[in-house]
């Protein structure tokens, strides 16, 4: 920020004097709590930050909101024009069950929808597949056919609410169903807003929901991106996600760096089709966690925006500022929630939500206090939503953009994050690139190392977890009402899927599945149109996924620990 050299010299003198006098005399009386302080990622922290720390920071790197490099936010007015989208995720049971929860959340003031699918849907199995037993509708909603999807969004105006779908290896099939519904209802595809997660690379790294080998899986992502760029101007065809990398145990720094590494692969893949970077990059969206280290998280969000802007401009030659603008959904950190003294999860979540807002998120999910037990109840979701509403409407933090911008500490940490992110990206390039390193297990090992270190630090008390390794109370009986699992779910779900199979024209479906195989074998084609035809004719997700396994095979990771 370039204070004049004379005053900088004065500042250095004053700091040295302060260390030698006030600080030294206090330390004589009492040592500090630790010999050295660090962020969660392990970045060493000074006692205090001053203008001297920002002397070399170009003012242009901090910049202004809505302007390159977007450190201070993707938009010029941010929450002064519209609060972030309050987007609580929901999903359990059948389409009917989740549809009711959606309507409840909308009635409570939620402004966007977000859908969790059950394990079989996430992994591409129909509800009556043997591997689905015990899992149908348990961790999310079960979707096998277009009929399920129609029930899920029954009575909800999809032109006027954005819908996020947390789905990865089978994402393109759900996108096809979403498009088929929209066409059936006569919507304009260019007016639909929302997203599929569709970030397959972080699945191999962290969340471990994958079906096919890496190359065809990335091709499916490419097809979603190019299809949406041409047909759905407002739709985000991907949410490049750090959340799961973090939940698998990575540090905030690893989360940010690995997520950007994945974004580079997707951009490269689409560029190979000959599409111009500015034709699709403006709709690439991101998804980060908000962890417990308050300032480090805010620095992470700001640094991620700045790094992405520089990558898109310098590495890919984007010219449209919208291609350089990182927009992200945020979720508070589920892995920080505890079962003991579970009510304190409300406080944790509120703190994490505040750093997401101060970091400039575009939409936010706050976790339910009961999520260390089961998927959340209505009561827990209402509390979580009210937490966001208090931040938005009572605290007044939303009236000024990037209110912590210019803080000596925050700007220094943002710079440090940027520097370290680029170092990691360089290392990935030098070691042969993201896909090779996934195959080598390099990311998986880096994440596992940090996760193990965290577990040991919780054990030795170096990392306090209130209610667990500090201020623990004798074993409590949990007097908490939990979300029940309805044992009739699987029966109801399977009945509908089998009904669809009986009613459809099987010859038509069979012909389309043959065509699907041809399209899959020809990399120059886009898989979306034939998939849309398939779901419209009553093909199940399992039909599509299984047929493609005959072409591509499946992926199995080499387990490392």
């Amino acid at each position, binding site marked *: 920020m370039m204070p004049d050299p004379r005053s900088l010299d004065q500042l250095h003198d004053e700091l040295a004097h302060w260390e030698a006098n006030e600080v030294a005399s206090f330390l004589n009386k009492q040592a500090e709590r630790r010999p050295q302080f660090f962020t969660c990622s392990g970045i060493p922290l000074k006692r205090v930050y001053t203008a001297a720390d920002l002397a070399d920071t170009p003012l242009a790197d901090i910049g202004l909101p809505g302007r390159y490099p977007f450190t201070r936010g993707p938009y010029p007015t941010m929450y002064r024009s519209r609060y972030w989208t309050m987007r609580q995720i929901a999903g359990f049971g059948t389409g009917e069950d989740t549809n009711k929860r959606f309507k409840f959340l909308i009635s409570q003031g939620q402004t966007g929808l977000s859908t969790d699918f059950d*394990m*079989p849907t*996430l*992994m591409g*199995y129909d509800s009556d597949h043997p*591997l*689905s*037993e*015990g*899992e149908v509708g*348990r*961790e999310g909603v079960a979707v096998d056919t277009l009929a399920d999807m129609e029930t899920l969004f029954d009575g909800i105006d999809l032109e006027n609410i954005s819908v996020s779908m947390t789905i990865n290896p089978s994402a393109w099939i759900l996108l096809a169903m979403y498009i088929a519904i929209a066409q059936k209802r006569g919507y304009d595809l260019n007016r639909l807003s929302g997203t599929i997660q569709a970030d397959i690379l972080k699945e191999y790294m962290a*969340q*471990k*929901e994958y079906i096919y080998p890496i190359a065809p899986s990335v091709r499916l992502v490419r097809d979603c991106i190019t299809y949406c760029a041409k047909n759905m101007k407002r739709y985000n065809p991907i949410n490049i996600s750090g959340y799961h990398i973090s*939940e*698998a*145990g990575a540090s905030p720094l690893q989360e940010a760096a690995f997520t950007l590494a994945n974004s580079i692969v997707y951009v490269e893949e689409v560029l190979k089709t000959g599409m111009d970077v500015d034709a699709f990059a403006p709709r690439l969206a991101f998804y980060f966690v908000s962890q417990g280290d308050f300032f480090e998280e805010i620095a992470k969000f700001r640094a991620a925006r700045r790094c992405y802007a520089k990558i898109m401009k310098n590495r890919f030659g984007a010219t449209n500022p919208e291609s350089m603008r990182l927009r992200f959904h945020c979720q508070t950190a589920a*892995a920080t929630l*505890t*079962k*003991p003294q579970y009510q304190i999860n409300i406080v944790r979540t509120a703190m994490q939500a505040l750093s997401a807002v101060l970091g400039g998120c575009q939409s936010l999910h706050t976790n339910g206090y009961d999520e*260390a*037990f*089961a998927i959340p109840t209505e009561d827990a979701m209402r509390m979580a939503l009210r937490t966001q509403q208090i931040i938005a409407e009572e605290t007044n933090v939303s009236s000024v953009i990037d209110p912590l911008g210019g803080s000596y500490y925050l700007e220094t940490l943002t710079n440090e994050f940027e520097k370290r992110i680029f170092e990691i990206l360089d290392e990935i390039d030098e070691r042969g690139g993201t896909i090779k390193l996934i195959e080598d297990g390099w990311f998986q090992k880096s994440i*596992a190392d940090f*996760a*193990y270190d965290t*577990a*040991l630090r*919780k*054990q030795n008390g170096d990392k306090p*977890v209130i209610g*667990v*390794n500090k201020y623990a109370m004798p074993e409590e009986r*949990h007097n908490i009402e*939990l979300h029940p*699992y309805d044992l009739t779910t699987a029966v109801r779900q399977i009945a509908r899927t089998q009904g669809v199979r009986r009613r459809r024209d099987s010859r038509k479906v069979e012909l389309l599945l043959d065509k699907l195989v041809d399209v899959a074998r020809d990399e120059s084609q886009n898989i979306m149109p034939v998939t849309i035809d398939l779901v419209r004719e009553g093909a199940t997700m399992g039909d599509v996924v299984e047929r493609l396994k005959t072409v591509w095979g499946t992926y*199995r*990771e*080499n*387990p*490392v*620990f």
Partner: protein
Amino acid sequence: MAAPIRILLAKVGLDGHDRGVRIVARALRDAGMDVIYSGLHRTPDEVVTVAIQEDVDILGVSLLSGAHMTVFPKIFERLRQQGADDMIVVAGGVMPDEDVAALKAMGVKEILLQDTLPQVIVDTLRRLVAERGPR
């Protein structure tokens, strides 16, 4: 010196949450145990077959998807069929209190929930093997 405790850690079904199981694997290895990790998406049959072939003392199954009440009965059924019902079976992950009681009744020796400290897991497994006595 007694032979090291041998344990198979397994992920069964569609559940991909493997942060916990990999931490446990390292902690047990660091404590001197022989650890085999199955990797993801195994069936109960595969897991029991490997546990018997590898002659492990303990079969540890990690589940965070809520499917434990479906998976564990299948594991015990398979162990019985193979005449290996004396194998020590432990569970790890996220399981509600009422299921913990049901799992114990089914024969699961210990249920190690999320946030269990690594050292507690090591101590628990040593105790279970000591209680079983030499084979």
